[in-house]
């Protein structure tokens, strides 16, 4: 187990270096690149006194290295700076928008895992047959389709033409007025269930379907390709041939013995797809007016509110690095070969 421990230490140090690096870059982007942050902070109509007060308030009068140290220590206290427009703490805003994003990201990745494993296994079992080619086309299509465009198509079909799903938003106005959800976790579907408010739950679910499905297309493609190539490899192994020769039931061989060994890479694909989902959700959220980090970021971009944008960068990266760290550790734990790399 010594090698596992040293792997663990190495991996955590790398994660810390990454975080430090990102923080430094965001510092450079926020304090060094902009010509006059104080001017942006107070707006063009401000008087000279207001501007000077902003310089002191933002600590811009101190030497750069002091600003840098203040910035880093601020981060440890959860201080991501102040929004230039709303003048509210960025961390506060981000935490308010985060649950909505996590809700679709988690649902989308669960969908992707199931569909991807199903498609990938099926494709490998029918290798070089029509089914395999079709699934390959679908999975390559899934990673090639621009999510924001696919989202529009889904709206056009399911709202515009068929009229069976809501156009956008997280919950309908009727529900908000007559069946309001008492927010507990910030995940509306979960909250509605905890409130035992079933009409609201159905309403939230109906709003969740399209964004989650659109967000799942890319990870579905990734997981499918990963599982397929691993399954093809595993099916050629001697132990599978041996099981077949012994007359084991085919389904037992495929789904119990082969699939299990093909699943580790699916897990890794999920790590990758989480990375994609965080930023992928940005574009999807904008289309579906989903009140998450993406909508928040795009509004910040439109208002040139860069402390908010950089705050999202730091939170998003931390989340991403954390997920990947956990996945790597988990993989190293179940698969000793990883530790030796």
């Amino acid at each position, binding site marked *: 187990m010594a090698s596992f421990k040293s792997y663990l230490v190495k991996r955590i140090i*790398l*994660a810390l*270096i*990454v975080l430090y*690096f*990102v923080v430094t*870059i*965001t510092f450079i*982007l*926020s304090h060094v*690149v*902009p010509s006059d942050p104080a001017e942006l902070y107070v707006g063009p109509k401000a008087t000279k006194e207001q501007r000077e007060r902003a310089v002191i308030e933002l600590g811009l009068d101190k030497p750069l290295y002091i600003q840098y140290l203040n910035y880093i220590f601020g981060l440890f206290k959860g201080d991501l700076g102040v929004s230039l427009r709303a003048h509210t703490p960025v961390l506060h805003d981000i935490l308010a928008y985060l649950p909505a994003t996590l809700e679709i990201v988690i649902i989308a990745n669960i969908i992707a895992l199931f569909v991807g494993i199903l498609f990938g296994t099926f494709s490998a079992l029918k290798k*070089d047959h029509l089914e395999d*080619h079709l699934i*390959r086309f679908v999975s*390559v*299509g899934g*990673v*090639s*389709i*621009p*999510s*924001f*465009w696919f989202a*529009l*198509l889904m*709206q*056009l079909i399911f*709202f*515009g033409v068929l009229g069976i799903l809501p156009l956008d938003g997280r919950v309908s106005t009727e529900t908000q007025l007559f069946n309001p959800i008492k927010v507990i976790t910030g995940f509306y579907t979960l909250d509605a269930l905890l409130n035992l408010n079933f009409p609201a739950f159905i309403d939230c679910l109906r709003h969740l379907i399209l964004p989650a499905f659109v967000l799942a297309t890319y990870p579905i493609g990734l997981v499918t390709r990963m599982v397929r190539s691993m399954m*093809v490899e595993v099916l050629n192994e001697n132990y599978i041939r041996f099981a077949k020769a012994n007359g084991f039931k085919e389904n037992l061989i495929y789904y119990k013995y082969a699939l299990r060994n093909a699943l580790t890479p699916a897990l890794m694909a999920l790590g990758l797809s989480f*990375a*994609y989902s*965080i*930023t*992928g959700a*940005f*574009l999807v959220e*904008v*289309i579906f007016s989903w009140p998450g980090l993406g909508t928040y*970021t*795009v509004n*910040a*971009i*439109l208002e*040139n509110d*860069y402390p908010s*944008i*950089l705050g*999202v*960068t730091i939170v*998003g*990266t931390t989340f*991403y*690095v954390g997920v*990947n760290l956990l996945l790597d550790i988990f993989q190293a734990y179940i698969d000793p070969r990883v530790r030796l790399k």
Partner: protein
Amino acid sequence: MKKILSKESEITLKLLSKDKLALFSLAIILFFIILAVFAPYIAPYPEEGEGKPAPERRFLPPSIEHPFGTDYLGRDILSRIIFGARISLSVGIFVVVCAISVGTPIGLIAGYYGGKVDELLMRATDVFLSFPSLLFAIALVASLGPGLFNAMLSLAITWWPWYARLARAQAVSIKEQPFILASKAIGVNDIRIVFKHILPNSLTPIIVQGTMDMSSAILSEAGLSFIGLGAQAPSPEWGLMVSTGRIYLLNYWWFPVFPGLAIFLVALAFNLFGDCLRDILDPKTRKSRGETF
């Protein structure tokens, strides 16, 4: 060495010409390249393609004169898509070429020298690989200021580590081969070995990766333009067109739908072609197709 290489590429070409999916995707890629190069001659309304409004015919549905309809300023959408091909393809090429020319030398040097150089360069690469690239690109463009060039630059900056890792793996496997050992023995200098002997032999996987990355680069740039960080109006950039057309979706569906279709087709073609290329070049999958060297 030369002879073996040429035989290898001969087989590759032969397999490629038999692969219908590869030919199909290559045809789409060539089609869009032709559109981009000859845009002013192919587009039915070249001036509108570049942004000149035609207010007397706004929101016309698809017809024979305007196969993809017209937009909110009356411009022919087909013409604008044709001009947009220039932007998307050049963005893809720029990002991939930049990423390859930065990443490859770093990877090759790390792999060839090994030891401390390797450790240092690859740890730096790992750091870059460890954060979400689009998020990083968003932060960069937001600070540098929105615009097509800044968007391209930010994507290129976030992309090179993949090539560094790929090139390193190639260099590590090639540097022990007899012809490299022989060059070393007769005193060829290191730089020459890396760039004259190792580089040409490690290009194949880099090219495959580059083909697939064309698709990711085009998609990412369209996404950046869609949220307002990339190309600015009146540019006929596809992502920007979807973005401006999106509020008209339910009334004038053709406005956002056709530009997005163009993005999808180009991205799909590059991905499929890269996929087929990898299948053919990878000895493992090649064997399963019943072909051997």
